[in-house]
């Protein structure tokens, strides 16, 4: 039982990291960034390239190398997020909503298959593997690597939360989410704040990509798709547009899946996940922490 909970939370922290990006972007410009899961994939591949380039250094100082790799990957993935926003989304900010969704799908295709064309469709094996001792915690197996990763994830999320609630840019983000026109009139540089949002969201996805690569060892060009869908689900469960909701939703989804596949069998897990989601939305459509939005008069 404890094992299930721990496994669920561990997977859930990955979902949460990716869901954050979805949620931030949605919260501010109401865009479902379909390419977000692929930024996670891109982050993993950038990490792979960086580590391979560092070569021999990695063997002796794997943790340091990994942290450096993570920084590099976050920077580049974040940059790619900003680039996508600039090229594919910004020109369409005043267009029909579906058009932006289509470019998002287009961006997702482009990212996936560009990586496949450059790195090949074969799965790649990460040069560094986080291997560590296993702790026994009341019958649940927990590895130190898992603890470190969850620690990093929580750290990133807490930092993000502080950034959004404390810093002036964070205030600007919230202002835009609340009332874009008002924010503009108050002298906030809406474009730059939106670009920054994309940078942060994408960087988090990139970090998650490196973490996944180092922990599981295998990366491939389609790895972002499924986890993108799950993160999207997580963001909706938590209340899309809400930062804490995204974290909560990620963890919750991880737990649901762990229990779902344990009791129903792995082949039914996604059916279970999506059924719960639908049930959930029918009963509480704004997600757990979503604000009450009344669309009708």
């Amino acid at each position, binding site marked *: 039982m404890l*094992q*299930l909970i721990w*496994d669920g939370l*561990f*997977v859930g922290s*990955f979902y949460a990291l990716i869901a954050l990006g979805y949620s931030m972007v949605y919260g501010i410009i109401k865009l479902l960034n379909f390419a977000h899961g692929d930024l996670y994939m891109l982050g993993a591949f950038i990490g792979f390239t960086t580590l391979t380039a560092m070569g021999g250094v990695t063997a002796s100082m794997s943790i340091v190398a990994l942290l450096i790799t993570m920084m590099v990957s976050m920077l580049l993935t974040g940059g790619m997020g900003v680039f996508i926003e600039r090229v594919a989304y910004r020109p369409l900010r005043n267009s029909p909503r579906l058009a932006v969704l289509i470019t998002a799908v287009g961006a997702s295709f482009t990212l996936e*298959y560009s990586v*496949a064309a450059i790195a090949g*469709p*074969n*799965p790649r*094996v990460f040069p560094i*593997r986080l*291997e560590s001792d*296993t702790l026994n915690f009341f019958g649940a*197996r927990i*590895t130190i690597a898992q603890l470190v990763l969850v620690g990093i994830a929580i750290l990133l999320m807490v930092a993000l939360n502080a950034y959004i609630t404390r810093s002036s840019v964070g205030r600007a983000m919230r202002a835009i989410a609340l009332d874009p026109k008002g924010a503009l009139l108050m002298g906030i540089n809406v474009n730059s704040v939106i670009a920054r949002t994309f940078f942060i969201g994408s960087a988090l996805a990139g970090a998650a990509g490196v973490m*996944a690569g180092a922990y*599981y*060892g*295998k990366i*491939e060009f*389609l*790895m972002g798709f*499924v*986890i993108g869908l799950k993160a999207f689900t997580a963001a909706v469960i938590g209340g899309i547009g809400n930062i804490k909701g995204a974290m909560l939703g990620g963890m919750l989804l991880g737990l649901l*899946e*762990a229990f779902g*596949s*344990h009791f129903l*069998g*792995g*082949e039914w*897990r*996604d059916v279970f996940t999506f059924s719960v989601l639908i049930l959930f939305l029918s009963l509480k459509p704004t997600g757990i922490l979503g604000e009450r939005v009344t669309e009708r008069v």
Partner: protein
Amino acid sequence: MKRPKMLVISLVAATALTLTGCSGGLLGGGSSDEDGPIKFGMLAPLTGSEAAVGPFMKNGAQMAVDEINEAGGVLGRQIELDVQDEACDPVAAVAAANKVVSNGAVVSVGGYCSGATLPTLPVFEKANIPMLIPAANSEDLVNEGLKNVFMVNATGSQQADAAAKYIEKVGAKNVAIIDDTTSYSTDIAKATAELLKEKGVEVQSSSVTPGESDYSSAVNKALSITPDFIYWTGYFQEGGLILNQVRQAGYTNPYMVGDGSVSPTLIEIAGADVAEGALATMTQTPDTIKGAEDWIANYTEQFGSEPGPYSTQSYDAVRIAAHAIEEAGSTDGDKIIEALEAIDGFEIFSGPLKFTDRHTLSVGGFQILVVENGAFVLKDNLQ
């Protein structure tokens, strides 16, 4: 009012007339080329979720084609390999099959995903083109009893036989079998589970969704029965991850994988130390046949990477097809099929070839491999 309509109609008519003049429309006639190269069609997944395997098949087949061409070709003509992407998608596969047929293939040497290969059977059947299927191995392929369908890959039940035989041999009593919900994998898993249950072995079956990274729930479920044997019937990507994750979770008993997992990448993904001692059910491969080092060296030299899953079967499919055409003395579908049925003892990687009445291999040729020093080597030939 009338002008645009008239304009359009005459435009369409004019285009139609010009185009029919020079190509094979209903109004024009097609002609087949009797002196050019003989075309072998091949459907392999080059894009999509299974894109990793396509090049292995393509290269294996290309290698056989090159060898045969160097030796003078077939019936004095060169062979040309026409590889089309099936993307593991039925619609793409049927389109690709039609393209191969339209391009004038006389035989098909491809087919990877069973679900995508099944709808291509009628396409090849109508064109009377023999199919030598190197990778797809669902029994469904031959259950229809089409006369043009031959399986060069051993079937799931043959592999299950081998797996059950070995599991019984090592005396395992509590076996966890994990599949990945593809037809290839579930076929083997179900058949193995049945055979084992008949022999009084406790079996726990479970499935995972392929293409993910975290299989902790499958691992927990498998370990909940404290198994003394785990058999994974899916492909190498998940196979490597699950191997790594069961070992992390403290499982020390044997872990065996099916032939779709026999790849150096499995060892890389699981980690070389972790993979050491892992078992596999596999047909004979160059690694396990004496004197086949040359084959691997040639392959590696030609394509810059080591052979992978289904390289050998694709290589064999081309050789069998060429042999049959040579024997038949013709590229006519019926004659090739007759020649294929008459083959007895043609040497391929899995042993001397003879097709059963169902057009499957009479000898599965399965044996047990083990990972030693980071490579799969022969452990038990099950004789």
